[in-house]
């Protein structure tokens, strides 16, 4: 990905609080159904996997298909249990991995 994905995670939360996480990746999500100017199909190139993990454990993930819009936006919830670093990962069809880390303090 040319541009770093945006992740909106609260800086701090109460223990047990359920917080919303919003993510926005910058990606064309080429479906593989479109035809280019030369009449040939443009090959598929999408982000097919999104993962959010904490302490090496997967909390939430998404398997994406071409019907997900360009610049995929995913919002979900996580329960704040302890302070630490959350890892957000996107993987595209070429196995290119983009990773973003965000820290949340739980009191």
């Amino acid at each position, binding site marked *: 990905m040319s541009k770093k994905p945006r992740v909106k995670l609260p800086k701090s939360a109460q223990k047990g609080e*359920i917080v919303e996480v919003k993510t926005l990746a910058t990606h064309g999500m080429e*479906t593989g*159904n*479109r*035809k280019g100017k030369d009449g040939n199909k443009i090959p598929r190139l999408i982000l097919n996997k999104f993962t959010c993990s*904490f302490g090496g*454990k*997967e*909390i*939430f*993930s*998404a*398997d*994406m*298909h*071409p*019907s*997900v*819009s*360009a610049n*995929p*936006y*995913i*919002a*979900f*919830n*996580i*329960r704040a*249990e302890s302070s630490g670093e959350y890892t957000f990962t996107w993987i595209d069809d070429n196995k290119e991995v983009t990773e973003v880390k965000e820290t949340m303090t739980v009191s």
Partner: protein
Amino acid sequence: MTKTNENMVRVDRREALKVAGASVLAIGFASTAHATPEDAVKYIGEKTGGAAATEGSAKVTIKLPEIAENGATVPITVVVDSPMTDADHVKHIHLVADGNPSPQIVSFNLTPGCGKAEVSTRIRLGKTQNVIAAAVMSDGSVHTNKQEVKVTIGGCGG
């Protein structure tokens, strides 16, 4: 007389070519056929291991615009009624479209760490169709619900 006959033949040949061209076009369309509601149901069956689904379940709420002006980005939120505890939580939420080139849209994999089974994203819809959300619970039960979206401009390209 001979000349007219020749012309007749020419016209016939043209007509024949037109017909041939049309049939090629028809085949072209058929190869890019869209998924049907049956495909969507079949896909859900594959994803849920054939478990009997509770259709139109009150546990699954889909928030979608009734009319989407731009099919390229249609906001969708799915809420599943679940306590999200270790014993009782939502494992997967599959979003399926019955009129897109392929039925699958996205599958969300949830854990009790999510706290709440609510996810939002933006999807592409090629034409007016039903969007189906299938929630797979930790006890293996499947709850589905669907909503129709009217699409003014399709968003699948091609």
